[in-house]
């Protein structure tokens, strides 16, 4: 076996693909998060009609991230994207206290979905750059996250605007995908 064939072998082992679903209420910051992950400009974002998808390379993974619009009208379509999901990222606007109940209810419904059973979930407590943002611990308590027993879960405070906390969250994503596949 020569050097060339070793090189060829290295080249031909493609990154492992991971399907990530990005969900949450409208105005939670899903598209901003997606663009941050792809290192794109975030200053001209508009509400998502339908969905956006981007592939990002990270730690030997090819992350295919699906950002689905969060408007109530299109939430019924979320289920069309559940199949073969490896990871669920749920984004919460930590400053929108009036809708904590609504977002909690949507999350609970997602965790009850058969097609998403056992899929690890990362909850981003987003918009921590705002003074009025609730801390992640308060949100975790409000959502009763500690009662989740059937999957890996994690809550991470972040600001999609400044980028703070996103890397930590994505590290957890990669670790959990690894743990699940092994």
């Amino acid at each position: 076996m020569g050097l060339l064939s070793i090189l060829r072998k290295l080249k031909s082992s493609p990154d492992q693909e991971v399907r990530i679903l990005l969900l949450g209420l409208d105005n939670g910051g899903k598209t901003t998060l997606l663009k941050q992950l792809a290192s794109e400009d975030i200053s001209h974002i508009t509400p998502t009609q339908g969905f956006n998808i981007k592939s990002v390379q990270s730690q030997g993974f090819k992350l295919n991230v699906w950002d689905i619009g969060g408007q109530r009208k299109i939430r019924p379509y979320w289920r069309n994207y559940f199949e073969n999901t490896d990871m669920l990222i749920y984004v919460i606007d930590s400053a929108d206290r009036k809708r904590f109940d609504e977002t909690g209810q949507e999350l609970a419904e997602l965790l009850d979905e058969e097609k998403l059973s056992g899929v690890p979930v990362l909850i981003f407590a987003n918009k921590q750059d705002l003074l009025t943002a609730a801390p992640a611990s308060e949100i975790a308590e409000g959502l009763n996250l500690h009662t989740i027993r059937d999957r890996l879960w994690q809550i991470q405070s972040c600001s999609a605007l400044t980028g703070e906390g996103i890397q930590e969250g994505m590290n957890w994503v990669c670790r959990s995908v690894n743990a699940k596949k092994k």
Partner: protein
Amino acid sequence: MHSSTAYFLDSIDIIDYIDRCKRLLRANTGDVKMFDYIWQHLFTPFLRFWFKWFLRHFTGKCELQRICGGYRPGAARTLRAEYSLESSKNKVLRAAVSAEEDKVEECAMAIMKEKKVSSQKDPAFKTSLQVCLMQISGYKILYGSVEELRKQPFDCENNSHETMLLRLWDLLMPSTKLESRITKQWGDIGFQGDDPKTDFRGMGMLGLTNLIFFSEKYTDVARQVLSHSGHPKLGYSYAIVGINLTEMVFSLLRSGALKPHFYNTAFQSPKMEHFHQLYCYFAYEFDKFWVEEKPESIMEFNRYREKFHEKMKGLLQQPDVSLCLTVDSKP
């Protein structure tokens, strides 16, 4: 004594032609980057210089004169003048592309002095050049004001913003009263939640201003578009799709892709009104496109948005492009 220079190949056309040859050559050369580098730094300035020198002596006119005399007013003329000014070695000429509106005449005089153009020999030149300069610098100024409006976020504390938002409702839904400022009714005109303020996002007040302009100037058309958006299968969210289209027109303006359109349609410098008018064209045409394409569901939006975007970019590349809303006569 109309100029006959139109029959000559101008240096810009020659550069155009060479560019095409270059692309052919480039495709057959291994090291593309190196080739581009050599081309950009050696051949283009060198060739351009000699062609210009030759034509200047052959026709007795400078490049700007040949452009102004040889092309009809509009994109064909202004785009060439812009290219000529921007690639000039002369500071006065380069600075002219960003002249304020009230400095344009002064600028034109300075250019004539630099290039030793006599207004007796070429009496039409000054006016033509001024129109070109108005259009060129007007585009840049327009981008500045559009960007300013975009950066201004929608603010509930600002009375005029609130008034505009309520006016949008009244224009689109004349027979339905808004029950309160925060209400699910906003969904009926295509906002996402019960308070539109979070939907303007990266487009800020530019998004709202566009929506209002469309509903105000073309009230019937806007209501007709809104009625399509309520279709059970082909329906889409009117307001947020509108904000999305604002982003499309804005990014085309930023990239310079709207130049041919504005140079053809704005008699002098393009103004905010021209931008809003173009938005109306996009809003109306997108709706038509969407209905004709019969997408499976709203989830397909981005795919069709991209398709529409490509279609518009294609139209904008045509030299005589003029995107004006013409409403079908049927009710």
